[in-house]
């Protein structure tokens, strides 16, 4: 196990591994997104309460899930980086942050677009949207802190500590916002949720969610490979592959 871990941690091996699996993931991702879109937009029946507007969940919910998932990835990688000083973990965290912020933005924007016809307003201080907004602030802070350091190693360490502080705070923020929400709002508001959802609606949702996850993985692998190239530009394996025109 540990040996396997070590081998993966080598930037050269990871570069090669990502090179092999990325195309397969990309194909699978395209299929899932295409079928999920078709089944979500065309095949799935109309919701009897929300009408056709419920179809927004097919992009909103996967984005919201990814916004959390990517932050967890960043926090996990940050812990590994701080404990074992594993460069790969830092690169993955760095490559993931802008995408996590993009998914958070999408979750907010599509949530607001769903809210206009349902709540009658573009922005409701709903617990889930508010938590998502705070998550966006955390992402922005993470990227800003990393960018502010001229010494990139110090910036990486500082960003990793911030990510861990953030991940301890996320559940606290989430529950305090939820509590605040029930304190200040009448319970009659329709919750932006996927409760008693029919199976014909659920399957496209799961396909879209998996498609989004693969989409993230494909781009994360690609970005991680680019960052590995830049960091390892002077090593012999990169030089050799550059000579063979096979980067």
């Amino acid at each position, binding site marked *: 196990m540990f040996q396997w871990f070590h081998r993966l941690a080598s930037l050269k091996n990871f570069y090669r591994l990502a090179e092999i699996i990325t195309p397969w993931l990309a194909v699978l991702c395209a299929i899932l997104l295409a079928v999920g879109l078709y089944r979500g937009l065309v095949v799935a029946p109309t919701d009897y309460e929300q009408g056709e507007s419920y179809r927004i969940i097919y992009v909103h919910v996967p984005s919201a899930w990814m916004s959390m998932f990517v932050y967890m990835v960043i926090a996990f990688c940050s812990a590994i980086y701080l404990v074992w000083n594993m460069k790969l973990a830092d690169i993955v965290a760095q490559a993931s942050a802008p995408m996590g912020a993009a998914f958070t933005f999408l979750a907010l924007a599509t949530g607001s677009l769903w809210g206009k016809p349902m709540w009658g307003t573009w922005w409701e201080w709903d617990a889930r949207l508010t938590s998502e907004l705070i998550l966006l602030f955390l992402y922005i802070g993470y990227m800003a802190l990393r960018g502010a350091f001229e010494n990139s190693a110090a910036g990486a360490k500082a960003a990793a500590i911030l990510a861990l502080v953030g991940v301890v*705070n996320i559940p606290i923020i989430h529950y305090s916002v939820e509590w605040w929400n029930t304190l200040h709002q009448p319970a009659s508001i329709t919750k932006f949720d996927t409760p008693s959802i029919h199976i014909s609606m659920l399957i496209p949702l799961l396909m879209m969610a998996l498609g989004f996850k693969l989409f993230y993985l494909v781009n994360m692998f690609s970005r991680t490979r680019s960052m590995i190239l830049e960091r390892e530009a002077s090593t012999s394996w990169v030089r050799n592959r550059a000579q063979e025109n096979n980067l």
Partner: protein
Amino acid sequence: MLEAFNAVLNRDLRLAMRRRGDWVNPLVFFVIVISLFPLGVGPDTELLRQIAPGIIWVASLLATLLASETLFRADFDDGSLEQLVLSSQPLSVLVLAKVLAHWLITGLPLLFLSPLVAVVLQLQGRSIPALMASLLLGTLTLSLVAAIGAALTVGLRKGGVLLALLVLPLFIPVLIFGSSSVLAVEGGFPVQAHLSMLGALFLLSLALAPLAIAASLRIIYE
């Protein structure tokens, strides 16, 4: 260990007495921000009473943030921060002493000013004990959290705005439970639940923040 803790605490308190601007300015800022709100929303007594807990808490957040910027700055500039990091004593204990000293000179005075601003904002007299209790627990937590941000940004030339960006989202739970404890008393509800949540937040930050602060300071001198 306790001796080292006391030594840092005494030194910081004595230095703070000399650098008056560091702790007087955030207090003045607190009072000015609070007096801006009635000018902005109008002098309607009922409205002011409703939003007073929120205003006082937001102003405390901003004052703590402003004050925390100077927490490590002077020590970083004159090199005594490096001495602290290199010392044989556990760094998290030493930074805890620094944060406590900083809270005593910037957070505690907010507590004593709060009855005054509560009266100005038309809060009922019976809310004042709850306001002070929530501020006691809340500003301690805020100082600890803000210190993490201050430690992460102390080596940077333009740390100020970045510090706000990092730390303000982390202040949100304290803001929620702090202002709601005052609102609870205003509405005639029991306040224990809110205060015990603030207490829990304080204990959690007391346990974890010194570790994060120490780790952040070590980065600078690696």
